[in-house]
């Protein structure tokens, strides 16, 4: 399909302009993080200034954000691993069951997702407290896995639904047992989907705030909670939170760049059939 040069340039220009505007808040936050507070919130905005990395170093070293990064990493990676595993198994089963019970389960899962999370914070806290799990990793991980399941199951199911039935029948004839059908036939076909699901699970668990506030303690504090602690009462804090906010984006960006290739193909192959 031939695409003419002039419209291409216009298109590129339009997209570039939109992207630039879209990224302004992030860029501005980055600039704020390297300015002194007196310049950061000035009228008119200060464009020429002497940059400083003091807030960035303060955040990561003095305020010990590297510790919270470790917590966030442990919790996120564990969550993604467990959530995608459990969800994929369930999604496979639900994709092959075509009865009323499976549909009810699916809609039940969706309904769970519609309930406001803030109301679950207190029961969660009580449950975790009773089991003595406050300030431990398992509390956060289990909570995040559970919250994540509806979306994960729905997304993975839509990938499984695309697997042609003939493959299952062929495998059954070949004498594969139930697990082998899953692991040797279905799973390889939805591999791109796994990447996509993993990414969204990672985003959810990495960025979750309210449950982290309630379920983590000094030993397991995650990055979002740490950042929220600098929300106000002194402009210095705002510069700090700007530095922290920009900093915590980097691991995810790195992860995305690594996974980039699979992302688009993954969603394309799967979610279309809903």
């Amino acid at each position: 399909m031939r695409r003419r040069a002039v419209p291409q340039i216009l298109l590129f220009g339009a997209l570039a302009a939109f992207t630039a505007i879209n990224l302004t808040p992030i860029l501005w936050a980055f600039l704020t993080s390297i300015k002194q507070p007196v310049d950061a919130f000035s009228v008119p905005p200060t464009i020429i200034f002497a940059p400083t990395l003091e807030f960035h170093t303060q955040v990561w070293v003095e305020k010990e954000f590297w510790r919270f990064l470790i917590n966030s990493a442990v919790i996120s990676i564990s969550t993604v691993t467990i959530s995608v595993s459990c969800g994929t198994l369930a999604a496979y089963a639900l994709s092959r069951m075509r009865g009323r019970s499976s549909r009810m389960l699916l809609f039940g899962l969706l309904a769970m997702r519609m309930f406001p999370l803030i109301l679950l914070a207190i029961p969660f806290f009580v449950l975790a407290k009773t089991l003595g799990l406050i300030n431990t990793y398992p509390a956060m991980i289990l909570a995040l896995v559970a919250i994540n399941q509806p979306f994960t199951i729905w997304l993975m199911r839509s990938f499984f639904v695309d697997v042609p039935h003939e493959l299952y029948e062929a495998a059954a004839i070949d004498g594969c047992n139930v697990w082998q059908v899953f692991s040797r036939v279905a799973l390889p076909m939805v591999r791109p989907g796994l990447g996509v699901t993993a990414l969204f699970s990672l985003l959810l668990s990495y960025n979750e705030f309210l449950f982290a506030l309630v379920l983590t303690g000094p030993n397991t504090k995650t990055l979002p909670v740490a950042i929220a602690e600098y929300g106000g009462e002194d402009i210095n804090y705002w510069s700090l939170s700007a530095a922290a906010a920009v900093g915590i984006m980097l691991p995810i960006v790195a992860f995305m760049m690594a996974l980039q290739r699979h992302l688009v193909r993954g969603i394309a192959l799967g979610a279309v059939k809903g």
Partner: protein
Amino acid sequence: MNKRGMNRRQVIGGAVGLATLAGGAKRARAAGPVQMVSHRYPALEYYAEKMKTAVPGTTVNTQLMPFDKAHELVTIAMSSKSDNIDLFYANDSTFLTYVKNGWLRPLDDLWAKYKQEFQLDDMVDTMMKTYTYNGRLYLVPHTMNSMLLFYRKDVFDQAGKKPPTTIAEYQALAKSFNTPLRAGTIDCLKPVDAGLNEAHWYMNALADGWFDKDWKPIFNSPRGVQAIEALKETTRYAQQGFTTAANDECTIALQQDIAVMGLQWATRAKSMDDPAKSRVVGKIEWAPPPQGKARIASDGYGISAFSKQDPDTLFRILATSSNQTNMRGAASLLVPPRRSLLTDPELKAQNRFYPAALAAIDTGLAFPALPEFYSVGEFITRRVLQAVTGEMPVKAAMDAAATETENFLKGRGYYK
């Protein structure tokens, strides 16, 4: 670890146990570090550092966060009688809620025991009264705070004006100084805390306060309505975005030459002269709020009623952080609630805002001693904002707030 004995754990033990082993659980301590939760601003950060080294051999984990988040966390933990917070912050208003709910341990016994060692008699009487409920003491005072009138001396001098002594004068001055590029004054009306602060000043100075002695709302009386009308009038000369401005934004407005004057906390005074934050170094002066009756507040720390730590240790931590030496170190960040420091000439010389702060404390008023004030504050600030933005007429808004407040309090057992 999870094979201990409790049946509940064994039932859910399977999945939890697996994750526990996999995730390397760190058990919540039985009697280990002391956990402290607090609001965050410079003075409290200073105190938190002092608490960490207060009692040798005891580790103190401090968690500081914005006011409402600290309040949420304490609410969630205390309402389930959890022991995972030992010390927490309260101000003169939220402390009443906490006491009524039974979340704070009375301190009278410990206070008497350590009075000599930490010179606890030196604490200002009004503070002690504020933190006493039904005859028992519940918090160790750490700061006092009063709202002051911050104003730009250079702008005032240029116009040949002096600081206002009445609210009418204040409004006239705000109007005369108001220009598109620089507002006449600041208003900080973000619900709930900031909004209540401002309304409190008008309600007490121009009307008869919030409640009568039976806790029936009187803020919708004709004078009360007039007070809010006055507040509405002032907002005409206030900075943009005042409906979502809390203390931070108002402070920035003053520091960035966006407004000429306004009411703010004394704890913000020092930052006006900090060149890393302020463009108006040396240009701001302070006066007591016109007509007085603005809010005075104080922050303190209390001991959780459900803590399993040794109360003596916990008290010693709080008493040490607020002792004379430590409090002196924070003297420029707050108004110290110790008589010896208030009358110290050296401190007065160092902190230009002290005279105004002391005068403000003399004429100021704390929030009503109603434990549910913060909760009904939700109704009040919402309606005040509706009135101020013109969504509803002021009288209708105040009447609605009064009705909602009365219904709420009736539901909590008042008016028997």
